Each structure stands twice: as C-alpha cells, then as structure tokens.
C-alpha cells in the first residue's frame, strides 16, 4: 500500500473525481478527510470507504468561505495527526456564457470556487505539509485550463489560472520538499459532464467518438493519476500540468 499511515485531504469528495480519488487513497492505506458542501454525497463517500475497511471522515466546507477552508485543514490535522497529501478538487462548471453574457455573480462564484479556494486551500495546507517534512498537492484544473471551448468564459479562465497558481507554488515550495502539480482532466464520465455536454450542444457519445482513445475518461482513471502524482513514484515531478484526456487535445 502506497499511502499507509499517510493523511490525505480531498475537496469536492462527495462525487465524481473527488469521490473516486478519496476511495483510491483509502484503498492504498491513507486516512482521508472528505470535504464538500454536499453533505449527503460526502457522507456516502465516507461510508463507501468504511465498507471496504478504510479510514475516512466527512467535513462540511463551503469553498467560498475562507473560515471553512481554514477550519477544514485544521480539522484534518486534529483528527488524523498530520497532513501529507491534498487534492484541491472542488469546483463548479459555471454557466454557459461568453465574455458579454457572463454576469458578475457567475464570475465571482466560479473564480471564487475554482481559483481563490484552491489558493486558500494551499495557504493552509502548505504549513501543515512543511510540519510533516514535505508532501504533495494536486490541484484540479481541466482540459479547459489549456485551451478554451465555446461558452466557457468563467470556467476556462479559472482553470487556466489554476495552472499558473500550481506552477507558482511548485517554484516557491519545491526547495522545501513540497511538490505541486495540476491534473487537467478531459471529458470524464461524472455528474459534471452531462450539463457540460448540453452547453456545447454535443451528445456525450459523439464526444467520446472524437477522442483518440474512443471513450470518455472515468473518475477512476483520473484518481489513478492523482495518486501517482501524490506518491513517491513521481518524486521528481513538480509544476506539471498532467493532461488526462484520451488524447483529445493533440488534435487541435
């Protein structure tokens, strides 16, 4: 087991990639704090982990609230004694808007959740990782952190910014043995995908046929990549934008 006696924090752990990653961390022996605003889903994730004999706890946190984020990190350390890995993954897909239609409310919400919250997570996680002698952070960006798609004004902007935030933290804290990488998932079969497909007028199966590997990603595919980025098998990998999209973005 790669993460025995390690403590991992997963935000957005109530569904999708966050849930799959929390489950994968626990399967590999980690103690996991599952954070989300969605209580029911979050508690379900914890139950799924417990059913397999894993160790996890739910923490309700609103990523738009600074205090919630500070308390979440503090709780992980109080509950499990330390922090070794963090997957800053909670996010929102935003509205299907362009630069003219996007409202200030949408902008503030999407940038608040997808960008500012990731920074605040790191602001409180990094001091705890330093106390543990080092650690690894993975931030969820998106394929849309590397290019834009129609009507993704706020989302694409926020996910591009996560790449910059990730690199800056990698550069600043690499010398202190903290690795920071971004995961850029492409079309992945999660609850977030269905409304996204509606926004682009593209049926999900048509989307799969455009991907070189001819399928959508699964939450479990993405979880494997996160675990590798948090493990000692990627000990010299930092500041990386890891695109996991079945090859779609090479076709541009």
């Amino acid at each position, binding site marked *: 087991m790669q993460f025995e006696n390690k403590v991992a924090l997963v935000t957005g752990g109530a569904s999708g990639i966050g849930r799959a990653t929390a489950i994968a961390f626990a399967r590999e022996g980690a103690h996991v704090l599952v954070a989300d605003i969605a209580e029911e889903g979050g508690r379900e994730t914890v139950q799924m982990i417990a059913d397999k004999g894993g160790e996890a706890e739910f923490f309700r946190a609103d990523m738009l609230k600074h205090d919630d984020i500070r308390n979440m990190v503090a709780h992980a350390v109080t509950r499990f004694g330390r922090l070794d890995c963090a997957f800053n993954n909670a996010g929102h897909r935003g509205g299907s808007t362009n630069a003219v239609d996007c409202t200030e409310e949408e902008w503030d919400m999407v940038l608040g959740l997808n960008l500012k919250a990731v920074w605040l997570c790191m602001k409180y996680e990094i001091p705890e990782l330093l106390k543990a002698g080092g650690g690894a952070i993975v931030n969820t960006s998106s394929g849309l952190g590397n290019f834009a798609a129609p009507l993704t004004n706020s989302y694409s902007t926020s996910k591009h910014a996560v790449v910059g935030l990730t*690199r800056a933290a990698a550069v600043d804290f690499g010398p202190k043995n903290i690795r920071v990488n971004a995961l850029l998932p492409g079309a992945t079969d999660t609850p977030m995908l269905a409304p996204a497909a509606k926004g682009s007028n593209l049926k999900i199966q048509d989307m799969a046929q455009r991907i070189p590997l001819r399928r959508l990603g699964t939450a479990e595919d993405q979880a494997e990549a996160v675990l590798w980025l948090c493990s000692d098998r990627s000990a*010299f990998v930092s*500041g*990386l934008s*890891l695109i996991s999209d079945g090859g779609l973005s090479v076709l541009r």
Partner: protein
Amino acid sequence: MDLSLKGKTALITGSGRGIGAALALGMSQAGANIVLASRNQTQLDEVRTRIEAAGGSAIAVATDMSDPASVKSLMQRALDNYRHIDILVSNAAASSIIAPLIDVPLAGWRALQAVNVEGTISLLQAAGPHMLKRGSGSVIIVSSTLGMNGNPNSSAYGASKAALNHLTRTVAAEWGPSGVRVNGLLPGPTATERVKAVTDDPAKYRAIAALMPLGRWPSAEDMIGPALFLASEASAFITGQLLIVDGGLSAVCREAGQAVMAKPAA
C-alpha cells in the same frame, strides 16, 4: 494505484546504460520481460545479467538504430522470444553535437537525426503493425526538455527531440483508436554517466541543481516511476502527452523572475 507490469513485455532501446538501463531494471522489477537493445553488446549483457540475478527475464539484442534493417531484426528477435510487445520505449539517442548552430557540421546533424528521429520512426514502423493488431499497449518516447526550450548549443539535439515530441502527438492520434497509447517522457538535466564531468564538480552540480525548484539533480532511477505510470494501466486515459520530469525546472523562468520581481535598490 497499480503500476504492475506483470506478464507484459517491454522493449527498450538505448538500454545499455543511463536512463534506458534504469528503465529496464525498473520495468523488470515491476514484472515485465525485457528486450534490451543498443549498439554495445557488452553493456547490454551486463544489464541482462543484473536483471536475471534479480529473478527477471531479458534478452539483449545489439542494434544500430540508424539502420532500419537492424531495427526490424530486433523486433523479430523480440517477438520470437516473447511473442508480444506490450510496452515500447524509444530511448536510444545520440547527443554528440554540442555547438553553436553556425559551427554544426551538416553531416553530423544528419547522423544525429538518423539515430534520434529516424531510429524512432524505424522502431515505430517495425512495432506498430504488431501493437495495432494486438489492440493495446503503451509507447513511451523518451525526449527531453531541450526539445521545448531554446538553450544555446543544443540545436541539433533539441531539434531532434522537438521532432520526437511532434511525432508523439501525431502517432498518439493515429494509434489511439486502436487502443495503443503513445506518450513522451521528457527528463530535464539528469545525473547519468554522460554528464558525470558536470555532476562530479560540486560548483557546477550546485549551479544547475539550484535552477530546479526541487533543488537536486535527479538520477536515472527517478525516471522509473514516471515510466511505470505511462507503461501501466494507471495512465489508461493518457495519450499524446509530454510528461516532463524536471523537478519543476520548466515551470520557472528565473531570469524573468529576477528581471520583473527584483526588489528596487534601497
């Protein structure tokens, strides 16, 4: 996270020393049968002996990557011995020309491209039909961050690696529908035998280590984990990617930082 390669066969070129030898030993430890290839049979036999001593299985095939017939016969030997190729690692590379472009001899440029670029093409053409027919597998093209950045004196080597990066992305698009993934592995400066003169000099070692946010030179062994990730099912949805393993070097432009962010003189 399952990085196991149990029951798989990996063919690795340039595996007599350096990163290629490390990947061969690492993939063998992960359970794969190994086909070793380079020009130097003596070095290959040493690596094969180490693999066998650790309980693994390997064959060593002397190969000239600049000769398509030699590459073809390598593939035949591999298939005769292990029946399948699941993992193909194109790692053999010449790095003989370190000079400003004005001084690069055209004949030397061509000889370098013949190994690095055409050798990889020969390998992909020799293995492709088998892998596509099999409908699965992972190709790893070992490139370099010098294929992305414009460092002085690296035009010949850098251009060859840039060509490989493009090849990686194109072949990923061509082979993806058949279930074969193709990714690049891009080490930054790595402490192998080839750069021993630099890494043995403490001042030079420190100067370059300081450029990398993680603050040290990686060893060839640091490339094993990333290669196992790309070779295994852990990266099942990843193709066409250039996986940079450089301790954060390419995330930072120190010169720009110093110019833009320098504190004003007191």
